[in-house]
């Protein structure tokens, strides 16, 4: 093999997502997935006939069968919310290796409307040996927020991070959401609002926690060669990497350090970028602490300094490091596995299509997904054609 790099081999050529201020969507399941796929393909100027690869966190084969296509590449990687960053990484590698040319990835979940839809309720835990059931559930750990609360408690004790600093992340994210007409919550909030919201699992308040909404999205990733003459400007994968550390929170080696400390530097190196080059950080914000850990582990600031780094508002509109410009999982949408929306917003910003919330400089974006309970991190560095 030649150099261990994916830089420029593949590009995101089409994206789609769906969300609503009501938090609910009218369709669900495969119908919603197929709608997203068609929208993303139309965005790219492609059709299902062009697709020779599928990625789906759970049933890639089932999706291909439903679509009536016979892919030569299937990825069923399921690691929670960062699955979609891993799907892009794997698909870019497959394309670089010549295994396929055009891969569609899709996600749809409707936890909010499922509450009232007959048969829509979540299924019970699967049978079989389950360490989490044996060693965590008897202690009343409330997932997912309990795990993140433990991480936040450790970060506060070890580095002096404050509730106000975490709250600022929610405040800045809401400022972005106020410019997204599809965001679930668009009314500005203050640090005091966050601190006055009910304590869920200390030190996390309600407004430190992501939403529960319906939502869906899709991407089309094509080889650089195919990408050149499609409908929209290609957004190239410049670098991608994964870092896994554990599955259940008890087993996380250090609750203040995620696998992003591995995936981030690796993806940045592959992309050949430095932190100053990053115009947009889409950092998975399941909770405020999640986003804070990304800032440190990706190296935007030193370990332990994330609180002070976030506290000056630099992550919001007009700030030096725009983060989660769609309003994030905290205010835009969070159907359970949010990583797809990181990619979609990054592409829209890099193409200059983000409307009122469009950032001025838009050449390089980082989509950084977190899956499980800070378990599996996937970093994807994206860039416009001029960054190649």
């Amino acid at each position, binding site marked *: 093999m030649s150099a261990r790099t994916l830089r420029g081999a593949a590009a995101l050529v089409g994206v789609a997502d769906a969300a609503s201020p009501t938090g609910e969507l009218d369709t669900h399941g495969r119908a919603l997935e197929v709608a997203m796929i068609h929208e993303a393909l139309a965005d790219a100027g492609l059709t299902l006939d062009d697709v020779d690869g599928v990625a789906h966190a759970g049933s890639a084969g089932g999706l291909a069968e439903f679509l009536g296509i016979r892919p030569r590449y299937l990825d069923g990687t399921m690691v929670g919310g960062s699955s979609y960053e891993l799907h892009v990484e794997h698909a870019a590698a497959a394309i670089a290796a010549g295994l396929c040319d055009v891969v569609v990835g899709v996600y749809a979940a409707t936890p909010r409307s499922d509450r009232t839809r007959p048969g829509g309720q979540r299924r019970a835990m699967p049978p079989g040996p389950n360490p989490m059931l044996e060693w965590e*559930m008897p202690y*009343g*750990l409330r997932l997912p927020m309990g795990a993140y609360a*433990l991480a936040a408690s450790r970060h506060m004790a070890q580095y002096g991070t404050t509730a106000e600093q975490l709250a600022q992340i929610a405040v800045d994210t809401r400022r972005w959401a106020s410019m997204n007409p599809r965001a679930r919550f668009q009314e500005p909030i203050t640090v005091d609002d966050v601190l006055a919201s009910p304590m869920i*699992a200390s*030190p*996390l308040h309600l407004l430190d926690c992501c939403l529960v909404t319906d939502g869906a999205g899709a991407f089309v990733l094509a080889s650089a060669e195919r990408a050149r003459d499609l409908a929209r400007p290609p957004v190239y994968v410049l670098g991608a990497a994964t870092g896994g550390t554990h599955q259940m929170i008890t087993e996380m080696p250090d609750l203040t350090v995620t696998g992003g400390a591995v995936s981030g530097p690796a993806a940045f190196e592959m992309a050949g970028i430095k932190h100053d080059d990053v115009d947009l950080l889409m950092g998975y914000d399941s909770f405020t602490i999640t986003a804070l850990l990304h800032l440190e582990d990706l190296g935007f600031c030193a370990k332990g300094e994330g609180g002070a780094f976030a506290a000056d508002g630099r992550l919001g509109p007009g700030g030096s490091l725009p983060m989660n410009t769609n309003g994030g999982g905290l205010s835009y949408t969070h159907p359970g596995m949010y990583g797809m929306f990181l990619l979609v917003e990054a592409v829209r910003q890099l193409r200059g299509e983000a409307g009122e919330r469009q950032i001025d400089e838009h050449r390089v974006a980082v989509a950084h997904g977190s899956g499980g309970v800070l378990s599996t991190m996937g970093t994807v560095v994206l860039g416009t054609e001029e960054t190649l």
Partner: protein
Amino acid sequence: MSASDLKLIEPPVSDASAPFWDATRERRFVLPYSTATGRAVWYPREVDPAAPDQPFEWREASGDGVVYAASVHHKPGPGRDPEAGPYVVALVELPEGVRVMSNVVGCPPDDVVVGMAVRLVWHPLSDGRHLPQFTPA
């Protein structure tokens, strides 16, 4: 609320964890040690990933611990009674070199802080087993 009123999900017993739970009937807190590495392994696994053909050696732990991380759950997790009030979910580091999840009981929840020394206590389960919890030392 007394400890015996606590509602919780009683942990299932697997082949891997049977020696652990059997010992709790006698209020003994035992840890599996890898004979390959000499180190305690948590959680109890079906086989030792370092030496799949060698059984674990079970040794009794000191019962000491230090709070590594702690969260007062105001909104209860599965199995817990919402009427029972906030409780502490903690990760506790044991001097034996492993970290376990537990509850810290016997003090006001907000008194539990990272770095606090804690000591093993037992909560009786319905079938004669006991659930290990911790209390300020």
